[in-house]
């Protein structure tokens, strides 16, 4: 099975984080953006009772949908097919790309206009198309900027969040012919609009993600502000939507609460400019819209999360990004340090299923477990519990291993230390003897204790044990 590995060997996570925290300009960008997004979200949820009620509804809808996932996927497929939308199933990233490529080749496409889709990033779509000689180009402003810079998105909602307008101004002046340096944001957006407008009219295929797929009516819902998503799904002759299998909801009535939670949690907007609900290709007599609409349902490791009672909650995610906006670790290291398509808390818990725990377990340790993400998650995913579970999985011995890559973080030394620990703590005699030696020898404890003493004073055992102190008081 071929996999897109966005992740270099695991030690690199630490190196990348170190570089990121030592970059004051980038840290200022992220800090500013996080403060802004947190304040915007707070502004939407003044009424705490309403928030609590809506979150409970959102979580229940997602849990229920996941419990009925196979039935709902079958119903979705049946209704989409009846509506004339073709449904494809992909077990892996490579399968998904092969299906899309097959469609593009059949219709003789030379280019593909892309709306913002994190799933397309996850499967390495642009690369796969480029290898086949098809130009897949980004049309979301943030994605366009990131693509122009030859980078990857650093945030799932705001891809270019790591860049200042000065950097973007310089990038446009350098990369777009005939464009002079300007820091005026309106002017920069006008430039992007102009360039991309020319490309929409000539696009052969449009690609999009999906925010919610409604089983009962066979409807694909897309959330956006810019209108590029509508362009990609309306102007080209063929529309291909790619999505993870978890995005299905049973009924149309489940859409309003989830949509409200999504936009308010993500960017603090009560609603986005566009909510685009697609149920059919162009019908006889209609004058625009794609003649073919395809949906590619992608597993890529999601079924592994689904099979585990605790980890299934990972799939409740509606990709709002609030967990990263409130994460003290993400705010400091930024999105690129994670090395995965999905950064931040959601990235740490979902990436192991896509890339294997062996490639991603350090992310589970990149958390203080402060729980800020759990507090804001609109669908109440117990992110910290899942992080702890993944930490345990990373250390698991062969008998307990249940995920791809389980046990990858296991070291002989750590295992021996914990074995010793449990031995000492389960035998009173050994415990007394050990604690006596340690307290009496407290002066010998090392001054340098690795990472701990880099920014803290060294740990020193007390000269007397609690039991010694009690004995002294009594006598």
């Amino acid at each position, binding site marked *: 099975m071929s996999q897109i590995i966005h992740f270099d060997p695991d030690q690199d996570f630490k190196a990348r984080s170190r570089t990121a925290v030592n970059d004051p300009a980038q840290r200022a960008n992220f800090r500013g953006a996080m403060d802004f997004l947190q304040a915007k979200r707070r502004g939407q949820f003044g009424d705490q009772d309403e928030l609590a009620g809506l979150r409970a509804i959102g979580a*229940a809808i997602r849990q229920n949908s996941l419990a009925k996932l196979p039935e709902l996927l079958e119903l979705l497929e049946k209704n989409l097919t009846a509506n004339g939308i073709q449904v494809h199933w992909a077990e892996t990233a490579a399968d998904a790309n092969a299906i899309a490529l097959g469609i593009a080749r059949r219709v003789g496409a030379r280019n593909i206009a892309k709306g913002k889709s994190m799933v397309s990033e996850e499967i390495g779509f642009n690369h796969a198309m480029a290898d086949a000689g098809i130009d897949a180009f980004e049309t979301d402003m943030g994605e366009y900027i990131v693509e122009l810079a030859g980078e990857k998105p650093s945030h799932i909602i705001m891809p270019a969040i790591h860049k200042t307008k000065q950097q973007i101004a310089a990038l446009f002046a350098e990369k777009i012919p005939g464009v002079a340096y300007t820091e005026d944001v309106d002017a920069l957006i006008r430039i992007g609009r102009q360039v991309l407008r020319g490309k929409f009219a000539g696009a052969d295929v449009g690609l999009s993600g999906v925010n919610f797929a409604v089983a009962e009516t066979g409807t694909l819902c897309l959330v956006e502000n810019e209108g590029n998503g509508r362009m990609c799904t309306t102007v080209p002759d063929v529309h291909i939507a790619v999505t993870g299998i978890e995005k299905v909801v049973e009924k149309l009535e489940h859409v309003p609460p989830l949509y409200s939670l999504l936009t308010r949690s993500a960017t603090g907007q009560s609603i986005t400019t566009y909510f685009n609900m697609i149920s059919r290709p162009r019908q006889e007599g209609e004058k625009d819209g794609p003649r073919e609409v395809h949906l590619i349902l992608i597993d890529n490791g999601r079924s592994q999360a689904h099979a585990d009672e605790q980890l299934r909650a990972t799939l409740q995610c509606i990709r709002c990004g609030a967990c990263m906006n409130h994460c003290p670790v993400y705010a400091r290291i930024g999105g690129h340090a994670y090395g995965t398509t999905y950064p931040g808390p959601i990235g740490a818990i979902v990436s192991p299923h896509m890339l294997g725990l062996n490639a991603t377990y350090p992310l589970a340790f990149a958390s203080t477990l402060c729980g800020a993400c759990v507090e804001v998650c609109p669908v109440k995913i117990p992110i910290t519990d899942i992080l702890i579970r993944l930490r345990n999985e990373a250390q698991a011995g062969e008998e307990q291993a249940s995920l791809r890559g389980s046990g990858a973080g296991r070291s002989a030394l750590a295992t021996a230390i914990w074995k010793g620990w449990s031995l000492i703590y389960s035998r009173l005699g050994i415990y007394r003897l050990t604690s006596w030696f340690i307290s009496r020898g407290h002066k010998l404890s090392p001054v340098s204790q690795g990472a701990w003493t880099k920014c803290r004073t060294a740990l020193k055992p007390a000269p007397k044990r609690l039991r010694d102190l009690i004995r002294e008081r009594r006598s």
Partner: protein
Amino acid sequence: MSARERILGRLRTPGTAPEMPDVAGWYRARQRNETTPERITRLRAVLESVHAEVHETTDWPALLLQIATSKGLNNLLIGDNTPHGEHLASLAADKLTLIRYSEPIDGWRNRLFDEVDASLTLARSAIAETGTLILWPDASEPRTMSLVPPIHFALLDVNKIHADFDAAMRTENWQAGMPTNALLISGPSKTADIQQTLAYGAHGPRELVVLLCHTGVLS
């Protein structure tokens, strides 16, 4: 075994689904029972907060022609044989060039992108809570009309404003049959992708002009 069967097979696990929440009840309990004027006020306030231009009128064709002149529009795209479009046509005469969307996009894609200044469509209904217009584009008023031209005029009958999205779907019984494309539009297109600075006119219309019609769209 196909990929489909393998995926579905992996997902089939025993167990019972937790109960579905009472979504209808939640929204019902939050209804405000507003009058039409109250809904208009709410809709206006939210739409204007996201830079939409909103007018209340009892004579929309006159108002539209006046706005078109003040904006210096060369032309206006109208639907193919719609009652409101023809009504406007009967009054526009030499005041404004009207283009009818009478051919499929395939034959005039580039002209649509490059030459059309503005468009006029009907909004099916609206949502007060979020300042949202609901459009169900069809053969006579296609999807690209509210997307490609830089200025979009939308007509709305003030008696068709719902309290929230849930009420709109339920009252209009959407689940009985969805159109090819249903759209919620809440303002002109925008982006905050450059340093969180809001800019209007991303890829869709730069301006959204909402004409709230007090006496229906045909009088």
